[in-house]
C-alpha cells in the first residue's frame, strides 16, 4: 500500500493510486445499494417488532382471561408473600453461592486430573486410564439426584469422618458428577491440540509434564472455554438440588416459606433469584463465543 510517491514511480502507477482514492467515495450504485439495505433492515425490524408485540399481547390476554387466573396469580405471584420470604430465601441463596464456589474449584481440580490421566499414553498407565474411563462412564450416566442421595446419605453412614454439614455432602456429590462431564470436555480439548505441538515442546527439552502444563493445557483450555462456561451455568442451577439432602438453601427455604404461607410465591422468588445469578455468566459466555467466532471467520458473511 504505497503511502508516499517514489520519484521513479511510473505515471500509470500514480493513476492507479489516485483511482484507488477515487473508489473510496461510494459510487451511485453503491449508494443505492446501501439505501436499499437500510430500507430492508428497517422493514425487518418493524415486522419482527410488531409480530412480537402481537404474540405477547395474545398470550397475556389468554392467561389473564383464563378462568383460574385470579387463583394462580394469588398463589404464585403474591407480592406480600414474596417480600416476606425474601430474607430467608436470599440467605439460602448465599449457601448456594458458597457451595457453587467450592464445587467449581473441586470440579476444576478433579476433572483436570481425570482428563490428564485419560490422555496418558503407554501400557504402564493402562490401569489408571481404565479407572478414569470407568469413572467418567459411571457418573456421566447416573442422575445427579441419585448421586446426591448416595453421597449424602451413604458416605456419612460409613462413619469415616466426623459429622459434616449437609452442604458438604451436597458439594461432594456435585463435584463427583460434574467432574465426569468437565473431564470429557478437557480431554476433547487436549486431544484437539495438534501432536506437532507436543513434539516441538519435547524437542526443546521440556519434560512430559511441563509440555502438558505450558504448551498443551493453555491451548486446550482456550478451545473448550465456551463448553466449560456452559457446564458452569448448568451446575449453577443444579446447586439447588442439594436441598433434597435437607440443607437449607434457597430452594429449601422457599419450600419452608411456602408451607408457612400456603402460597407458592417463594418458589417463584427462588427461581427468579437463580436466573439472576446465572445471567452474568450467560452473557459472558455469549460474548466470549461471539468473539471467538468473529476471530475465526473474519470477513465471513454467513
Amino acid at each position: 500500500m504505497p503511502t508516499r510517491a517514489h520519484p521513479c514511480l511510473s505515471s500509470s502507477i500514480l493513476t492507479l493510486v489516485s483511482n484507488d482514492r477515487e473508489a473510496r467515495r461510494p459510487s451511485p450504485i453503491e449508494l443505492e445499494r446501501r439505501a436499499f439495505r437500510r430500507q430492508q433492515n428497517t422493514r425487518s425490524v418493524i415486522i419482527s417488532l410488531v409480530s412480537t408485540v402481537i404474540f405477547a399481547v395474545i398470550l397475556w390476554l389468554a392467561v389473564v382471561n383464563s378462568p383460574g387466573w385470579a387463583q394462580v396469580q394469588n398463589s404464585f405471584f403474591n407480592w406480600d408473600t414474596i417480600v416476606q420470604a425474601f430474607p430467608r430465601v436470599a440467605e439460602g441463596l448465599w449457601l448456594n453461592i458458597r457451595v457453587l464456589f467450592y464445587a467449581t474449584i473441586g470440579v476444576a481440580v478433579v476433572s483436570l486430573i481425570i482428563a490428564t490421566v485419560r490422555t496418558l499414553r503407554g501400557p504402564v498407565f493402562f490401569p489408571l486410564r481404565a479407572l478414569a474411563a470407568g469413572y467418567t462412564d459411571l457418573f456421566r450416566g447416573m442422575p445427579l439426584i441419585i448421586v446426591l442421595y448416595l453421597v449424602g446419605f451413604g458416605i456419612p453412614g460409613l462413619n469415616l469422618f466426623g459429622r459434616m454439614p449437609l452442604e458438604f455432602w451436597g458439594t461432594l456429590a456435585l463435584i463427583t458428577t460434574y467432574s465426569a462431564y468437565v473431564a470429557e470436555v478437557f480431554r476433547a480439548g487436549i486431544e484437539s491440540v495438534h501432536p506437532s505441538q507436543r513434539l516441538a515442546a519435547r524437542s526443546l527439552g521440556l519434560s512430559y509434564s511441563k509440555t502438558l502444563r505450558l504448551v498443551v493445557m493453555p491451548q486446550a483450555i482456550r478451545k473448550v472455554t465456551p463448553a466449560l462456561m456452559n457446564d458452569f451455568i448448568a451446575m449453577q442451577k443444579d446447586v439447588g438440588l442439594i436441598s433434597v439432602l435437607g440443607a437449607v438453601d434457597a430452594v429449601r427455604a422457599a419450600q419452608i416459606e411456602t408451607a408457612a404461607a400456603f402460597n407458592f410465591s417463594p418458589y417463584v422468588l427462588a427461581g427468579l433469584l437463580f436466573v439472576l445469578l446465572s445471567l452474568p455468566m450467560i452473557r459472558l459466555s455469549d460474548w466470549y463465543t461471539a468473539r471467538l467466532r468473529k476471530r475465526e471467520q473474519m470477513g465471513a458473511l454467513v
Partner: protein
Amino acid sequence: MSPTPNATARDAEQAVLRIDNVVKSFGETEVLRGISLNVKHHEVVALIGGSGSGKSTLLRCINLLEQVDDGQIFLDNRELTDPRIKQDEVRTHIGIVFQQFNLFPHMSVADNVALASRHVFKKSKAEAREEAHRLLERIGLGEKADEFPDRLSGGQQQRAAIARAIATNPRILLLDEVTSALDPELVGEVLDLVRELKQAGVTIVMATHEMDFARDVADRVAFLDDGIILEEGPAKQVLSKPREARTREYLTRFHASR
C-alpha cells in the same frame, strides 16, 4: 576422496555427532537400514534424497523423538541411544526445526524463544526475555518480539522457530526442510538466516530439497536412498559430479522437475 582408515578414526573421534549403523523400521517397512554419518564441529551437512527416503526419520532419531531399532548415536562421545540416558536433558543440547512451523500459538514470539531458557535452564523470567529479545533483534525480528505467531508471515515464523531452536546454544542444529512449506518469495530470508548461522559456527544437519542452497552452504552432502547413505562427500562433488548412478538420476530428475 577415500580417507584412510586412520583418518576415519580421527574424524570419528572429533565428531560432535556420530551416527553408527542406525536401523529404524515402521512396522514392516525398514526406513533406515544401517546409516552411519559423522558430523564435525562447525560443519554443515545436507541430507538429500527422494521423498520417503528417511531424512526426517533420521533427524527425529537423532533428537530421540523416535527410538532406533539398532545402532548407536553419539553426541560428544556420549551415547544418546542408551536407554539409561536422560532424554529431556539430551534434547536441550539438540535444536530441531520442522517443516511446519511449530511455534506455540498461545505465546508471543519472544515467549516462544524464551521458553526453554526459562523452564528448562531455569533462568529468571527477565533474563530469558532479555536474551530472547536480543536474539530476535539480531535476526531482524526485533519488532515482532511481542506479536503472536499468527501475525507473522510464514518466513518470519520459520525464522522465529529457528531462533527458538538455537536460543539455548545447542551443540547441533537439525533442520528438516525448513523452507518447503514456504511461498517461494519467503524462502530467501530463511536460507539467509541459515547461512548466517553457518558463519557464526553453528553445527548443522539439514534435510533439504534446495540443491543450490546445499551446494552453496553445506560442507558435505549425504544422499539417502533406500534406507542407506548411498553417497557422501564434499557438497560440490556430490552435487556436480556424483559417483553413483542413482545419485545422478535423482539429481537429474530433480533438476528436470524444476
